[in-house]
Structures are given as structure tokens and as C-alpha cells.
């Protein structure tokens, strides 16, 4: 197998006395969806925050193409090709869907310290924004203010913005949360398509989607990796059954 695009080595994050992420070593390959599951509070979002630079790790390493990026700022990590979408919708509500994506695409210009030429005249940026909107199926809603989009559409916009930055690695934090079944199906299909050109971390609670999409699965509990392997292996794992899948079934 080729070398991992993104790799963590004994990654740890403490919040005071709490080890939210503890000694986690994972790797991510292009053309592969690496799904991260686990109960609430297991540290999945914290791990995504560490990878995207929204949080700095307490110890351990994050290697992007073999280079340590642990502790770099979010903006630098983004510029190196890591795209992040958020669990809690994180968009520019007063702007139109198009402007949200246009701003995302604009970030890939060498510099935005440009003071004279009107922004709409950068046509390649606008094209990129429309492409991203079309990819998630939101192009017909381009001129609608993001605040008035439905919840599911806002989730799609969140992904479109991430795509507009042309990332090589996608960190998707619950992209399906709160989506209707039709929107979900569409998103699953999109992720399947994106997988070909991207390495992907998928944090998701929707188990049907996870098992349909994931090439590899990692189960986290209390900040630690409980089990990591192929979906079949995870399904068969007694430890996982007990710690996670079992309790969920019992609750249902």
C-alpha cells in the first residue's frame, strides 16, 4: 500500500485532567473512507479539531505527507489541503449560498490583499464556487441567503464550502446529522464519489451510512481507540459489541 496521506502518532489532548484524546495513532489514505464512530464524548470531534488545527495537541504527532503539522494554525493546515466541515453548522448566515462558497474558493488565491478589482470579476473563483454548489446539488439555491436555507441544505452548503477549497483530505464531522432520508442518500452518494480523489475522515452516527461507506472503521471510547479495522472485523468484534453497538441496540 502507498504511504498514508495523513497519519497521527500517539496523538493526545488533555483538557485539564481529562484526556479527551488519548494516545491515538491512525492513518488515512486517498481513495479510502476512514470512519470514526463511538458514543458521545468519545473524543471524535476533538480528534477532528486536532487534525484541522482548531485545537493544538498536548502531545503526539500529526503527519501530512510525512511532515509534522501538529500545532500549526488552522489557516496553515487548511492551506496544505485539509478541508474541514463542522458538526454544528458553521457557515456565514447573512451571505448567500453562492457567496459562502465564493469566499471559500477565494481562499485558494495566492493572496486576498487585493484592494481595487471587484471580487465578482475574479471569474475563476466564481466558477469554482458554482462547481462546489453543483457538486452537492445546491446550485439552484445559489442566491438564497444561507440563513433561510433548510437545515439539510445548510449541511450541504457546509460540505460545498469545504469542497470549494479543493482539499486533498476531507475531515467531515457528522455530515448527515439532521438530514432527511432523501438528502442523506444523496450525501452518501456524493461521499462515495469524493472518495476517489480524497482521503477522508468521516465522523458519523448513522450506522447504515457508516457501514455502507467505510473502508476502514475506528471505534473510540473515552478518548482511546478501542478497535480499528475493516467494517466486517468491527462488526464481529466482541469488545465493540459490548462497548458501543451492543448498548445502542439495547437502547433501541
Amino acid at each position, binding site marked *: 500500500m502507498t504511504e498514508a496521506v495523513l497519519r497521527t502518532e500517539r496523538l493526545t489532548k488533555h483538557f485539564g485532567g481529562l484526556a479527551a484524546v488519548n494516545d491515538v495513532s491512525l492513518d488515512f489514505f486517498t481513495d479510502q473512507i476512514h470512519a470514526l464512530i463511538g458514543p458521545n464524548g468519545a473524543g471524535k470531534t476533538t480528534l477532528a479539531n486536532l487534525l484541522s488545527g482548531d485545537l493544538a495537541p498536548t502531545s503526539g504527532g500529526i503527519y501530512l505527507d510525512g511532515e509534522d503539522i501538529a500545532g500549526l494554525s*488552522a*489557516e496553515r493546515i*487548511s492551506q496544505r489541503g485539509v478541508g474541514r466541515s463542522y458538526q454544528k453548522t*458553521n457557515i456565514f448566515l447573512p451571505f448567500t449560498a453562492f457567496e459562502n462558497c465564493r469566499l471559500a474558493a*477565494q481562499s485558494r488565491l495566492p493572496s*486576498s490583499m*487585493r*484592494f481595487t478589482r*471587484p*471580487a465578482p470579476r475574479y471569474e475563476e473563483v466564481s466558477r469554482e464556487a458554482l462547481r462546489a454548489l453543483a457538486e452537492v446539488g445546491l446550485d439552484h439555491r445559489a442566491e438564497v441567503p444561507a440563513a433561510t436555507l433548510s437545515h439539510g441544505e445548510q449541511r450541504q452548503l457546509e460540505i460545498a464550502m469545504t469542497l470549494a477549497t479543493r482539499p486533498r483530505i476531507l475531515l467531515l464531522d457528522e455530515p448527515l446529522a439532521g438530514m432527511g432520508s432523501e438528502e442523506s442518500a444523496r450525501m452518501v452518494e456524493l461521499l462515495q464519489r469524493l472518495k476517489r480523489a480524497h482521503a477522508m475522515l468521516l465522523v458519523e452516527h448513522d450506522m447504515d451510512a457508516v457501514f455502507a461507506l467505510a473502508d476502514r472503521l475506528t471505534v473510540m471510547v473515552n478518548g482511546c481507540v478501542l478497535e480499528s479495522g475493516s467494517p466486517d472485523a468491527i462488526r464481529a468484534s466482541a469488545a465493540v459489541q459490548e462497548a458501543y453497538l451492543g448498548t445502542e441496540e439495547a437502547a433501541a
Partner: protein
Amino acid sequence: MRNVCVATIVLLGCLLALALLPLFAEKYYIQLFTKMMLMAIFAMSLDLLVGYTGLVSLGHAAFFGLAGYALAFAAPQYEAASLWLSLPLAMAGSALLALVIGVLVLRTSGIYFIMVTLAFAQMVFFVFHDTKIAGGADGIYVYAKPVAAIAGWEPFSLENYTHFYFVVLVLLVLVYASLRMLLASLFGRVIVGIRVNEQRMRSLGYRTFRYKLVCFVIAGALAGMAGYFAAAQFGFVSPDTLGWHQSGGVLMMVILGGMGTLNGAILGAFAMMLLELGFQGLPAVGGVNIGKHWQLFMGGFIVFAVLLLPHGLLGLGRLASRLRPKSAEAGDD
């Protein structure tokens, strides 16, 4: 679309009125309007920070006042300074101060940002207030207005109050047009994005600190332009020009007019200064000089405006256009 048209016509009408004012107004009013236009430039520079970038600065007068002092230094005793030399110098001084203060304060945000901008501006205030470098608390006179001569030829004279008026009017239009251009540019989109959601801007890969710093420096330089001409007009600079009172006053203008719109900043500056005059001119009633207590009325009016007009005085226009039957949706500006 129709609202955009109406706004443009109103804007051009105001410009025409300002351009014609010296034809029929007395000296007092010409000088008053000169001062109001300078405050409008000052208010627009602050609005760039407060209304567009989301940086509520309570120390913006530091850049305004410093440029005034720069002029005082450039025109020692009775010698007039060259406009073409001292103006860029004064603006560069303000820009440099904004750069230094900006590097330090832009690491904070929200209420902390308000407090540290205030603290730094007060430091600058006390440098001029408590030392003898420029007359201390007494201030310093600028006896001669800057000279606009280029190799013996003088296109206009700032000693002439009508010339002064038109110079400031041209500057007002230039600053307005430049800021309009700036806000439509890539840079403008970035700073507005920072106001709406800075964390997301960073995760999209923008180094927001740099953009905020550049914005802070531009705003400081423009405040310096206003402060330079205010000092030249008044012929006197005192520490009060860079005090927190001045910073608060211009912030009030921006809020009163409507944050995040250049038109609002101009309107706020004009409205506030006219109101001040209006309240000061109130007649005495039964031996009580009401005009003396104008600040009481001013405060009351601002409370009223903030409560009833969340979008400032410009919001009145928007309200009016909404009440009109068949009117299109309110424009963005």
C-alpha cells in the same frame, strides 16, 4: 433595484447641495460644514473597523489626534508646513501608530478588544498630556495653515475658508469612493467574512490576523487624514483630540447613523453635530438655561435612537421604503 436608484439619487442630491453650499452660506456655516465633513471621514474610517470588520475600537481618536500633533510639529512657530509633505507624513505617522497598536490589540477580541484599544489610546493621551513635548495639557497652536504650493504655484489656499471647504469636500468624496472600491474587492469580502465568522474564515485558510491588521492601519491612516485637517482648521491641538471622549463621540456617530454602511457613518457625523448645535441653542426657560445642559438631551436622544432604530438613522429610510406600497425588498446598503 429601485431602492438602489433612490439611494443613488439621494446621494447625488446631497453631494450637489454640499457643492453649492458656499454660494449662499455664511462663513460660519461653511466652516461648520467643513468640520462636519471631516468628522464624517473620521466616522467612515472607524466604521471600516466597527461596522465591516467587527472590531469595536474605543481608541480611534489616538490616530486622529496624533496626525494633528504631527501637523503642529511640522509647522513650528509661524512657519507654514507644506501640505504635500506634512499630510503624507501625518498620515504615515498615524498608520505607524495603528500598526504598532494593532499588532498588540488584534490578538484579543470582543470586550477585551474594546478595553485594550481604550487603554492604548489613553497611553498616547497621557504622553501628550503629561509631558512638555507639545505644550502638555495646554495644547499647541498651529498658527499657519499648510501651504499647497508646488514650485511657486499655489492651486488653492487653505487660509481661504471656501478653498478649505472644497478641499475637504473632495477628500470626503475620494475617501467614500475608495472605501466603496475597497469593500467590493477581495479584501473587502474577507474583512466582512471576519466580522460574520472569524473562526470559519481561519478554517477556510485565511490568515485573519493579517487582514485585520491591514484594515486597522488603513482606518488609522484615514483617521489621521481627518485629524490633520481638523487641526489645520481649528489652528490648535490639545490632548483632548486623542482622548477617550473623542473616541466615544465618533463611535456614537457610527452607531447613530447605522453601523456597516458608509452612508450611515456620514449621516451619523452630520446628525450628531447638528443635534449638538440644536440642543445648545435651546432657549432659556424661566431662568433655567436649557442649552447649557445640551448633553442631557443628546444622551436622551441617543438612548431613544438606539432603542427605536437598531439600524441607526439610515434604518429610518429603510423603514420608509418598506412602508411604501409595492416597494421592492430593502437593498443591502
